[in-house]
Every structure is written in structure tokens, then in C-alpha cells.
């Protein structure tokens, strides 16, 4: 179970509290996984008592739509933007502490997925990788097993089933020629490991073609506690014109699966 309690002495408009919380939770606590089990009890509560705010301070308001943004003063909009940035970073840092304490975990893994279709596709892929027992055991074993990563993307709900179901109902279409747009195409998919020390990325799969992997380098990268897996679902190669392609990025944090996880949960007594 995940529980979180966050308090601030900034002054926040009561009606905006739930919108701020929902906004920052979507990219923090809702983007972590240790074992893929969603508890019956997960809760995060957020309190703001205004105790530090000057008497003439306006309450922070969430401007979620164009109308409310246009009604707000520039000063209010600046404050809201700054507050969201601070709150987002805070929630991300707090949520990542949970991943760092994953039962039996030895690794902290960031999964970054990029899609030029939409955020949902990127997130579905990231969640599937984070939930894969085989990906997580490979990470524990320090094995650069990118095949399991690809496999997990390929069976992700919303990605795998987009191939079978009536296309006109469920899959976005290219309006110009009515051809369906599949969320993931193998020949546009690339996977890399990004080392935590900022050194050069290790390319594992490039636009659907396996790379000749430097085993020594892979071992070096996987020895570290922190690792990033970068997945590009929109890789058309450097020679392809980028145009105005908008890239959506989802980041998810997880850990590895070790023998210790099984011991802890096998020994747990109700």
C-alpha cells in the first residue's frame, strides 16, 4: 500500500486543491510500480493552510482551461505555474523514495518512452515494461535483455489489441487517407540503456534491428544501482524530416525483482 501526506503553508483556493493534486499525482505517484499490485488502500492527502501567506496574497488557483486562464491576472498565472512546477518536483521526489525501498530491490529504474501518437501510448508501453516480471528479473540478474522489454511493449493493453479490434472504432486513423495508425511499429522502435553516470547511451535496438551490443559496456552499466531504459516508438532515423512532429514522453519508475522479494512475501503471515 502507498500512503502519502503532503502539507504546505501556502494559500490555495479550496476548489483548486483537488486539481493541483490530480495534476501532480498523474506524473508522480501514478507513475511508479514495485510489483504491479494496486492496493485497496492507496491514498495521498494534500493540505494547505495558508499560514505563511501575507494577508494580501491571492490564493493559488488552478487554471485548467483557457477560460480560467484568460480570467486570471498574469501575476496569478505566474504563481500557479511556479507552484505546479514546485509541487510536481516534490511529488516526484517523494514517490521515487518508495521505489528506492522496493522489497528486495537492488535497482532503481527509470523507463522513458517517447511516442509521436499520444501520451497514452507512451504510458501504456512504460507501464507494461515496469510490470514485466521477466524484465525485472533480467535487471536483477544484470542481463541486458532488451528482448523482454520489446516483448512487454508488444503485449501491452491498448497496443496489442489495437491490431485485432474493429479499426474504425478503436484505432486512430490518418484522416487524409483513412489508413489506421497503429500505436507501435517495430521498424520505428529503438531501445537504449542510458547510464546513470551521464556517459554515452548503449543502443540495443535501432529501428527494429538488433545492435551488436558491447557486453563489457552493458555489464558496466548494469552494475550501477540506477539505470534508465529509453524507448523510442517514433524513431524514423536522423535522415527522415522531423517536420512539426510532436513527441509525447511518459516516464515511469520501477525496480528489479530479486529472490528477496519472494522471501519477504512468501514469509509474510496474515
Amino acid at each position, binding site marked *: 500500500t502507498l500512503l*502519502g501526506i503532503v502539507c504546505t503553508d501556502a494559500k490555495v483556493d479550496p476548489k483548486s486543491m483537488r486539481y493541483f493534486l490530480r495534476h501532480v499525482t498523474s506524473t508522480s505517484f501514478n507513475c511508479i510500480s514495485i510489483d504491479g499490485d494496486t492496493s485497496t*488502500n492507496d*491514498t495521498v492527502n494534500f493540505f494547505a493552510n495558508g499560514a505563511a501567506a501575507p494577508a494580501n496574497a491571492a490564493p493559488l488557483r488552478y487554471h485548467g482551461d483557457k477560460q480560467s486562464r484568460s480570467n486570471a491576472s498574469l501575476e496569478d498565472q505566474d504563481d500557479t505555474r511556479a507552484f505546479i512546477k514546485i509541487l510536481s518536483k516534490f511529488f516526484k521526489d517523494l514517490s521515487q523514495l518508495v521505489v528506492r525501498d522496493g522489497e528486495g530491490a537492488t535497482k532503481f529504474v527509470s523507463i522513458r518512452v517517447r511516442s509521436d501518437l499520444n501520451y497514452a501510448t507512451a504510458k501504456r508501453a512504460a507501464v507494461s515494461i515496469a510490470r514485466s516480471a521477466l524484465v525485472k528479473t533480467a535487471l536483477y540478474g544484470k542481463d541486458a535483455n532488451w528482448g523482454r522489454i520489446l516483448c512487454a511493449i508488444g503485449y501491452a493493453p491498448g497496443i496489442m489489441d489495437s491490431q485485432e479490434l474493429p479499426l474504425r472504432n478503436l484505432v486512430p486513423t490518418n484522416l487524409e487517407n483513412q489508413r489506421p495508425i497503429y500505436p507501435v511499429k517495430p521498424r520505428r522502435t529503438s531501445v537504449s540503456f542510458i547510464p546513470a553516470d551521464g556517459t554515452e547511451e548503449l543502443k540495443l535496438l535501432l529501428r527494429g534491428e538488433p545492435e551488436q551490443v558491447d557486453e563489457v559496456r552493458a555489464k558496466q552499466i548494469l552494475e550501477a544501482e540506477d539505470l534508465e531504459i529509453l524507448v523510442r516508438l517514433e524513431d524514423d532515423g536522423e535522415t527522415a524530416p522531423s517536420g512539426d512532429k510532436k513527441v509525447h514522453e511518459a516516464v515511469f519508475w520501477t525496480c528489479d525483482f530479486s529472490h528477496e522479494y519472494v522471501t519477504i512475501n512468501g514469509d509474510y503471515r496474515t
Partner: protein
Amino acid sequence: ADRSIPATKQKYIPTSGTYPKGFLAGSAFAGVKATNTKYDDLALVVSEAPCPAAGVFTKNVFKAAPVQTSSKFLSERKGHGFRGVVVNSGCANAVTGRLGLEHAATMARTTDQCFGSAESDAVPSTLVMSTGVIGQRLPIDRITNAIPKLHQSLGSSHDHWMNAAQAICTTDTFPKLISRTFTLPSHPGTTYSIAGMTKGAGMIHPNMA
């Protein structure tokens, strides 16, 4: 169980903090789980003056009693006038039927009474959280007996916040607490604070709304 913090996790434990004005935190021992005879398992985080609050909750169909109860309180109060949140570890109070819901409400009302609220007040101003084994009822008498002690334990020091962060832990190997200060463009001379605690090490894949 031994609660010593592994050496590799020590770096995540803050030795000091800057906590938001007007908030207090504390912990106490209730003995929720039979095997725990010494570690605090109740925590309380409150605002000295009632304030706005919000919550996000699991989308799991089998929502625990404290989840149902707290989201109901937030809805009925429209996010206004909350005192804080009381938390127990050692038992999730989940899949516990009508009695579980009563127990969650009892935790809230008993905490409210420490701040002078009448039992007849329509909607409690304290939210509730629980964590632990699913499917077992709370030892509610132990909890209600310990809540006054919990109220007495409140303070604003770093140790108070750390103790509360520790009391909500279950299989965690370290308490998780962060605090920091910030400013806003409209009042650059005003320093605000934000503090947060979290727990969890297993059964973690939150999907909250």
C-alpha cells in the same frame, strides 16, 4: 522485527527539515498488530487551524474502509475545514464490511474530539488512512485508547515529523520524509514550506483518482 535502517538507505534519511507553519505531527503506540509490542503504529498530522484539503484514492474496486470514509468526508465538506489525517499501520481495515466503515469513522471522530469537536458534528474534519493486512478488523478499542496519547505527542520539530513518518511504515526499511522551502513570483520575500511523508515497499502500483 528489527527496525534498524540499512546502511545503503541512510542517505535518504533527512537529519533536519523546514516544516510548514501551523502544522503539527506526532506518533503513538496502540498495538494494532499483535506481533508489534513496541513500535509506534499511529500517526497524526494536523493543521492548528482547519484548512482546505484534497485526496486521491485507489481505483481498486475493493476500496478499503478508510478510503471510502475519507473520500466521503472530502466530498461532503467540499474540501473545506479539515484538521488533518490520522493513520494506523498494522491493519488495512480493508474488506471489513459495515463494521470496518464504522471503525474508520470512529477513528476520525475520536481524533476530532481531541480538538474540541462534538461527537454530533455532522462531518468529521479528520481524514483516515490505514495500512497493513487486508481482511482483518481493526482492534478499535486499542486505537481509540491511544488517540488521546497521539494528540499529546504532537509537535513541530523534525523529530515529530520523523516519528510520524516511521509510524506509518509497514515493510518499509526506512521512513520517507521530505521538506523544502519555496517562493512565488508575486511575493519573492515570502518563504513558504512544504513537507511530505510517504510509505510503501510492496503492493505498489498506484492508480489513484
